[in-house]
């Protein structure tokens, strides 16, 4: 392994700009003559708009334009779309209502977009927005996930019972049969709490219009600028793709929330032409809380059947998923194909049946958030496994071991064909790291100090490397999920890689360069990674679903193959040898069995000067592109163990130890991969202990700031012990499985399993705040006293 090649903990190339304050995020972009946009948002969860009077506001100082849904409609600007069609059990398509970028006569959640004011300054825009008179007729709001279906109030006429779809997966009859034969059945009612992604950089957009060329440019906080351009062009109708450039510069975290195409960027780019000035909008944090797509929000009943020996026979799940007031870009795929196919976990479960009812409510749209469907599935499986082990009086580690899948490939009853893995190896390593043998003593020590100690497991699996295009197409996706790459070798042998992946914290500028440096045998500083600009990079699909390593790097790998193949042709001419006799290794083309060689840089120069060959026989230049479409999902898996201590006097839960052992396949940069695990665990611990988006019964978001919504801070978390096992992924050339979401998927059940272990309860709801834990602890104490 070279110091900068695959497997090395290379320090990040992108860091210099970030640590010196030279990062360039969307809000740092300022265009000459730029005006400011401010969105007037609905204060009501549900209302008819009887009229909007903008006259007085339009006359206020600095105002350049005020626009409403009627203006968008007049310009034939279409609504926002949901790109994944789900079919009901009876085969009929899902029931989706329209999603206008600015309201058309009706608002459906607090924060819904009513009008936009464009003014010289933000203060002027805000002042003018206050002067817009909107006559609302309030309607009653539907807020609760479990009560939305069949509520009297109808949110979209297209979905008369507020149900978007009733979907299912698996074999109901086989599952019912297995349950009948079962010796033991565990039943749990679970809520997967609603979360707000809260990337630290709020969403932002700058729209610009070049009247001379008729070209729009949109700078936006996007994880997938090409997908944004595709949607804005083909569906919303801003401009044809060749007249619309989308740039996602440095993006300050996404976690899914910046995949989607939102109202604000749509309106900013359109309004730039309307007012003839660049238009900027940056969310403040409250707007982010109100209008970023939220995550999770499932209500589930689940049952697990086992035989007399504790062998799992079947799993049955019913979930109601809240999709909010409108269908966001990929919302429908999250509680369906990103969820139910993961319900087999790491276990050999012969029969599974899952039903999902997706509902509209008068809340912000819900879509993918780190893990997207897979954390929800893992929570169901790992809570059931833990509780079953307890009810059967089995050690939770041994019970898992007993039911692990051991033979690969393994076809689950819910679509997925797991290719490889070694779950027992991860468990063994995690047990060592946490010192499982010593837990009894540590529990006694805690008890002596008046504390309750618990340990909780989570054996998670995820499907990443999203995704084989034909497979997702057959499941309803409106796009293919391949990735593109272009490797441009310059005449002196430096390399630019243009990738359709997008980095917003993942460190692609480093890891992708490591791959190139490793394969071409050139210094890492000679490699630049270019992403995030539709004018520079050919069509690509962006970054989400832990896909950039497995899919994005595989595309680069393929393009490098082609560069090497072309380089061999060039070298054959230069070295006057047969192409078949040319080898390439360590940055040199050599002629087999001789000492004749041509280094990579010289080969590049020869390719461009083209003196040694006839340009008719071999094209000059050294630049190759590739599209890589994966052949299977990848299946990162691992075991996380959380050990914590509860102070029953205060209800405060302190995580004492965390062991994470993950199998991500081949790791390009262990430093970056561990960082991804740390961040994911923190988000999962946040979900388990601290975070919860709450609407009151009127549909007002009562957790709309960092004062009310508890973000994990440094002293809420421990340091993490991260270990790895490796089974290379067989379906892509690098053997990568992906690591971006694992921590967030694994950690919530590990925490809840540990808390319930400490308290001796079967369940506690997330977030297990000090108040909730304190209440539960009092029950434990009185029960213990009675015993």
């Amino acid at each position: 392994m070279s110091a900068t090649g695959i497997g090395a903990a290379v320090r990040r190339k992108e860091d210099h700009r970030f640590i010196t304050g030279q990062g360039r995020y969307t809000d740092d972009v300022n265009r000459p003559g730029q005006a400011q946009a401010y969105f007037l948002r609905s204060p009501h969860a549900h209302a008819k708009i009887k009229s909007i009077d903008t006259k007085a506001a339009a006359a206020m100082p600095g105002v350049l334009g005020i626009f409403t849904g009627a203006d968008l409609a007049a310009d034939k600007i279409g609504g926002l779309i949901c790109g994944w069609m789900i079919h009901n059990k009876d085969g009929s398509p899902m029931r989706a209502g329209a999603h206008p970028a600015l309201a058309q006569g009706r608002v459906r959640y607090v924060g819904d977009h009513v009008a936009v004011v464009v003014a010289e300054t933000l203060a002027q825009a805000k002042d003018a927005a206050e002067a817009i008179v909107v006559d609302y007729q309030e309607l009653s709001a539907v807020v609760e996930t479990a009560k939305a279906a069949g509520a009297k109030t109808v949110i979209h006429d297209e979905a008369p019972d507020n149900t978007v779809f009733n979907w299912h997966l698996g074999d109901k009859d086989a599952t019912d049969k297995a349950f009948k034969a079962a010796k033991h059945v565990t039943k749990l009612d679970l809520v997967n709490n609603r979360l707000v992604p809260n990337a630290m950089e709020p969403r932002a957009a700058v729209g610009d219009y070049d009247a001379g060329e008729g070209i729009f440019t949109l700078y936006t906080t996007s994880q997938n600028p090409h997908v944004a351009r595709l949607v804005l062009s083909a569906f919303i109708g801003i401009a044809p793709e060749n007249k619309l450039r989308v740039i996602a510069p440095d993006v300050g975290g996404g976690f899914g929330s910046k995949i989607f195409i939102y109202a604000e960027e749509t309106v900013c780019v359109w309004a730039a032409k309307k007012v003839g000035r660049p238009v900027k909008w940056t969310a403040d944090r409250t707007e982010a809380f109100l209008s970023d797509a939220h995550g999770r929000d499932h209500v589930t009943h689940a049952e697990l059947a086992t035989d007399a020996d504790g062998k799992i026979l079947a799993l049955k799940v019913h979930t109601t998923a809240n999709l909010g007031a409108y269908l966001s870009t990929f919302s429908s795929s999250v509680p369906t194909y990103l969820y139910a196919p993961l319900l087999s976990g790491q276990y050999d479960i012969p029969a599974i049946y899952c039903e999902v009812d997706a509902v509209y409510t008068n809340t912000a749209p819900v879509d993918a958030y780190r893990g997207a469907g897979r954390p929800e599935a893992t929570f169901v499986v790992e809570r059931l496994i833990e509780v079953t082990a307890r009810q059967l009086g089995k050690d939770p580690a041994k019970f898992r071991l007993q039911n692990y899948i051991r033979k690969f490939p393994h076809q689950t009853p819910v679509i997925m064909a797991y290719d490889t893995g070694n779950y027992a190896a991860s468990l063994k390593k995690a047990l060592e790291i946490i010192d499982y043998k010593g837990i009894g003593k540590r529990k006694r020590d805690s008890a002596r100090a008046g504390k309750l100690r618990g340990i909780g497991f989570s054996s998670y699996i995820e499907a990443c490397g999203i995704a084989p295009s034909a497979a997702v197409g057959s499941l309803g996706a409106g796009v293919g999920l391949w990735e593109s790459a272009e490797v441009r070798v310059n005449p002196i042998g430096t390399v630019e890689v243009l990738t359709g992946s997008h980095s917003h914290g993942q460190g692609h500028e480093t890891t992708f360069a490591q791959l190139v440096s490793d394969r071409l045998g050139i210094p890492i500083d000679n490699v630049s990674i270019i992403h995030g600009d539709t004018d520079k990079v050919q069509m690509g699909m962006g970054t989400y679903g832990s896909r950039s390593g497995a899919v994005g790097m595989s595309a680069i790998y393929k393009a490098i193959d082609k560069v090497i193949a072309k380089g061999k042709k060039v070298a054959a001419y230069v070295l006057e040898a047969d192409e078949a006799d040319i080898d390439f290794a360590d940055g040199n083309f050599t002629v087999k069995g001789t000492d004749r060689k041509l280094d990579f840089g010289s080969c590049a120069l020869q390719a461009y000067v083209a003196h040694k060959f006839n340009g008719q026989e071999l094209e000059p230049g050294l630049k190759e592109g590739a599209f890589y479409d994966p052949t299977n999902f990848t299946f990162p898996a691992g075991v996380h163990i959380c050990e914590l201590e509860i102070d029953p006097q205060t209800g405060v839960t302190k995580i004492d130890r965390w062991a994470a052992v993950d199998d991500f396949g081949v790791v390009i940069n262990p430093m970056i991969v561990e960082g991804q695990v740390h961040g994911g665990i923190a988000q999962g611990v946040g979900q388990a202990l601290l975070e919860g988006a709450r609407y009151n019964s009127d549909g007002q978001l009562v957790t709309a700031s960092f004062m009310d919504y508890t973000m994990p801070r440094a002293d809420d978390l421990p340091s993490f012990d991260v270990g790895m096992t490796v089974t290379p992924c067989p379906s892509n050339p690098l053997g990568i499985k992906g690591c971006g979401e694992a921590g967030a998927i694994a950690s919530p059940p590990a925490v809840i399993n540990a808390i319930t272990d400490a308290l001796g309860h079967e369940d506690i709801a997330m977030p297990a705040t000090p108040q909730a834990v304190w209440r539960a602890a009092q029950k434990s104490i009185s029960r213990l006293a009675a015993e």
Partner: protein
Amino acid sequence: MTTVSLTVNGKAVSANIDPRTLLVQFLRENLRLTGTHVGCDTSQCGACLVHIDGKAVKACTTLAVSVDGAAITTIEGLAQDGKLHPMQEAFREHHGLQCGFCTPGMIMSAVDMVNRRGHELDEKTIREDLDGNICRCTGYHNIVKAIAAGAEAMGKAGVTTRQAAE
């Protein structure tokens, strides 16, 4: 409009501003020093943290006029003569950043922490003291390591913390 005169990263600046201009707006919009970020509107996240006369202050809740005459250091002013501050180096070396959005505030906060609490910082101290800064990416694990290492490096470099920062 009101006139405000400040020293920012060692340079004297003077401007005529709307009195409601926040310091963070003044830095980002008037001076185009966009390294100082805005992550919230309730003074909770620390993305906007700068040093005012050597002390950490959240620039999102400070009116520019209220610091008339003060010396401000932002992330752009931390490196001296092209040489990174030891705390900047430590964040890179220990992978204390991912998306980089919280990073300027984290680094300014970390330097201030060393100013107040010295060069030997244990994990508990760092975690408690970092209460005013939110990071969504790193889980803090590597930030904590970076700060401990940066504090030590600041000591070894013999720069008194305040000199290093201002």
